[in-house]
């Protein structure tokens, strides 16, 4: 087994101001092994791989690569060794062609000039190997998000890499594409290339990983072969306690009063003829494939994108929402799926982030902001949502993902909206925080707020929503009620097929 070993990280420690990110973490990886790295946000996963890929330097500990102790000072060192990393945020250059992106920084040269022909051919080769139907000469700017994700993977594979680190590769691609990704991973596994795979989606891990290593608060809590584990074990390890079913079923009813009604909303090439209504205290789920147009609908309702046609009624009255300010005025708030860039302002303190929606309410006689009120507001929110932060003046950028998301939600709560749009509120968030946010949403609904919940996780939709709107190719295919909301029904209307049942029969 030892000779099989390609990478050993021994007693890695890393300290950041205020937090010990990693404590004596040791990791061992064999050739052709797929190691899944799991843990709550802020558990140290990202820090660990950033150290491995040379973005951070370790405070202590050593890295042994192919039996030799090595120093990884710079991303280039890592790449040089054959360790390439696919980060969550795309690292592609929109302006360049696919081929150039794959060979960025190491373009093939022929007598002193770039050999375009060869570059395109070889990159086309790589792409077709993975069965990706993209032209190498195409400009990345023209590709869809999922397609770009693929180019990323192709790029990583194009290095003669011995280890590929994937940080949440499936966060923003469809299951179909996930399947393809797994095929690829298995392929490269046979080539004796190892994979370190980070994901919050336990199901995936059990499909693909050989070993699962669980981090908590910067320490390794378990590292076992996949056979000796089941999902609940992993969750237990992750959050250090046993939580039963994540999704307690809803035991309450929503009122009849119709808060919000959308009539025939259309936006060119995004969605059309979207009509639905939202009752007081209702959680209305939006299900469907990634890219089906759910997010676009929400953005349009909130006035971030303009509607080409269609009407919106709030409490029966026609409302004109031409920009987000109008939406807020109508009591609608919005938590975007893009936490880093949209939900919160990284450069603002927690306080400022939370108060930003109700500055008007905090106005003093002179029309200035009442700092004291603002502070108490923030303190309350931090207490209610148990946001982990050193103080109310902590900059948002210093918070972990989960806490950032909580702050975003807190922002909307403190505004006490009548309608709340939540776009993938639990995306990339650890199980613990997830549960808290779920119960939060339910409390909200109890208090009479109408909630539009966009989620790609079927269990979330099933567990949370009174009704579920299924969107496909920018159109509503079905609106499911209460008990009718099942994976089967959701998927049927999401993908339009009758074979779903048949396949089920095959299994039984």
């Amino acid at each position: 087994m030892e000779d099989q070993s390609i990478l050993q990280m021994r007693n890695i420690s890393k300290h950041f101001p205020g937090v010990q990110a990693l404590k004596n973490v040791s990791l061992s990886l064999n050739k052709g092994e797929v190691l899944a790295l799991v843990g709550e946000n802020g558990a140290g996963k990202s820090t660990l791989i950033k150290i491995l890929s040379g973005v951070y330097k370790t405070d202590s500990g050593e890295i042994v690569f192919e039996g030799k102790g090595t120093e990884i000072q710079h991303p280039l060192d890592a790449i040089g060794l054959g360790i390439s990393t696919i980060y969550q945020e795309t690292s592609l250059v929109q302006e360049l062609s696919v081929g150039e992106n794959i060979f960025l920084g190491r373009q093939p040269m022929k007598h002193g000039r770039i050999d375009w022909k060869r570059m395109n051919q070889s990159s086309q080769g790589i792409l077709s190997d993975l069965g990706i139907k993209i032209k190498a000469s195409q400009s990345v700017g023209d590709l869809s998000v999922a397609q770009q994700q693929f180019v990323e993977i192709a790029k990583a594979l194009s290095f003669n890499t011995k280890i590929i680190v994937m940080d949440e590769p499936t966060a923003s691609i469809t299951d179909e594409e996930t399947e393809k990704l797994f095929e690829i991973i298995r392929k490269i596994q046979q080539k004796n290339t190892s994979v370190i795979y980070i994901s919050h989606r336990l199901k995936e891990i059990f499909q693909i990983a050989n070993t699962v290593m669980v981090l908590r608060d910067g320490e390794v809590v378990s590292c076992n072969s996949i056979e000796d584990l089941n999902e609940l074990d992993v969750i237990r390890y992750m959050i250090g306690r046993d939580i039963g079913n994540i999704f307690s079923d809803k035991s309450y009813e929503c009122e009849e009063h119709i808060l919000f009604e959308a009539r025939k909303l259309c936006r060119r090439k995004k969605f059309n003829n979207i009509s639905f209504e939202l009752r007081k205290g209702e959680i209305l789920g939006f299900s469907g494939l990634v890219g089906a147009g759910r997010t676009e609908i929400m953005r349009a309702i909130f006035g971030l994108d303009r509607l080409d046609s269609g009407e919106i009624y709030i409490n029966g009255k026609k409302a004109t929402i031409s920009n987000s300010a109008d939406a807020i005025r109508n009591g609608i708030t919005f938590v975007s799926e893009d936490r880093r860039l949209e939900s919160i302002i990284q450069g603002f303190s927690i306080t400022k982030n939370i108060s930003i929606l109700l500055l008007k309410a905090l106005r003093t006689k002179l029309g200035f902001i009442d700092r004291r009120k603002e502070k108490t507001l923030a303190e309350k929110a931090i207490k209610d949502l148990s946001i982990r932060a050193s103080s109310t003046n902590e900059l948002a950028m210093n918070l972990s993902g989960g806490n950032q998301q909580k702050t975003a939600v807190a922002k909307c709560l403190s505004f006490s909206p009548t309608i709340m749009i939540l776009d993938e509120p639990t995306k990339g968030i650890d199980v613990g925080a997830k549960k808290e946010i779920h119960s939060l949403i339910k409390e909200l609904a109890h208090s009479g707020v109408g909630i539009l919940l966009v989620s790609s996780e079927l269990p979330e939709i099933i567990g949370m929503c009174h009704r579920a709107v299924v969107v496909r190719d920018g159109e509503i295919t079905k609106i499911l009620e209460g008990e009718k909301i099942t994976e089967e029904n959701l998927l049927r209307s999401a993908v339009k097929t009758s074979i779903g049942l048949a396949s089920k029969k095959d299994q039984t």
Partner: protein
Amino acid sequence: MTGVADRNQIRKTVRVIFFSQTMLIILLSSVLLMTFLSPNFLTLRNLFNIVRQVAVLGIMAIGMTYVIIGKGIDLSISGMLSLCAIVGMKMQNYGFGAVLVGAIFVGTLCGLLNGYLVGKVKANPIIVTLGTSLVFVSLALIYSKGRSIINRTERIYSFFGNENVLGIPVVLLLIIALFLVAGIYLSRSIYARRLYAVGLNERAALASGIDSSKIVWISYVVQGLFVALASLVYTSRLNTVRVNIITPYVFDVITIVVLGGTTLSGGYGSLYKTFIGLILFGVIQNAMGLMAIPYEFQQMIKGIVLICAVVYDEFSRKRRMSE
């Protein structure tokens, strides 16, 4: 938990104070240096000179601070100043009130134009304002037919340019008043909070229901307003106006704002900083004059000072971040 919080709190505040003071320290030390180098530097008269000389720049720097915090920049202020001044002077026959109204009206219009193109159309501010500056200059020339216009109004007008009340220059009082008002507004008001938000992250601001284009737009109007006010001081100080095609004003004003420590990346800065920057700039310029440093090298020194200032500022910010 809270204990830790408090300690961090204290550490932070201390640090913040220290860093904001360093600019002040630089200023004071340079003043000290000058008093040794030139005997009549620390005379009341000279200090008043400094104020008089930077008054126009200072008033424009207030507006520029707003614009830069909103992640913009305005290179059209020279042209705008000429236009406001010319129009103002043309109004003088109808009395001081007319001058005031005329200048402010024009300034606001110019601001509206810039604001529309940058805020609403979202065109690049550098090119837009370079373009509009040409338009403003052109209008000023056409309107004045290229003549210089002489201030022939009653005393009240030339009054706050060069004269004193109780031995204190009127401009000094004016500057202080403007900085106080605009400063408090920038640190406390709702609009300002939104301006910072937009400067830091426009998308997030939008998602929080802030009409970013309107916010940016307004910031340019504010700039226009302050340029108009500056033009009043300018004309009443010079008693004659003519269109200056190439004035160093733009770069001086930007230098002042940056000297203070406001960064062009947007979302960061304050008028307190700008004020320090203004005085520092004034001291340096005045010092060079007093020491009869040849004009050629004055520019050079300005450049060096500017670069040192920003480099130092960047360094200190890194420190703050790493802490």
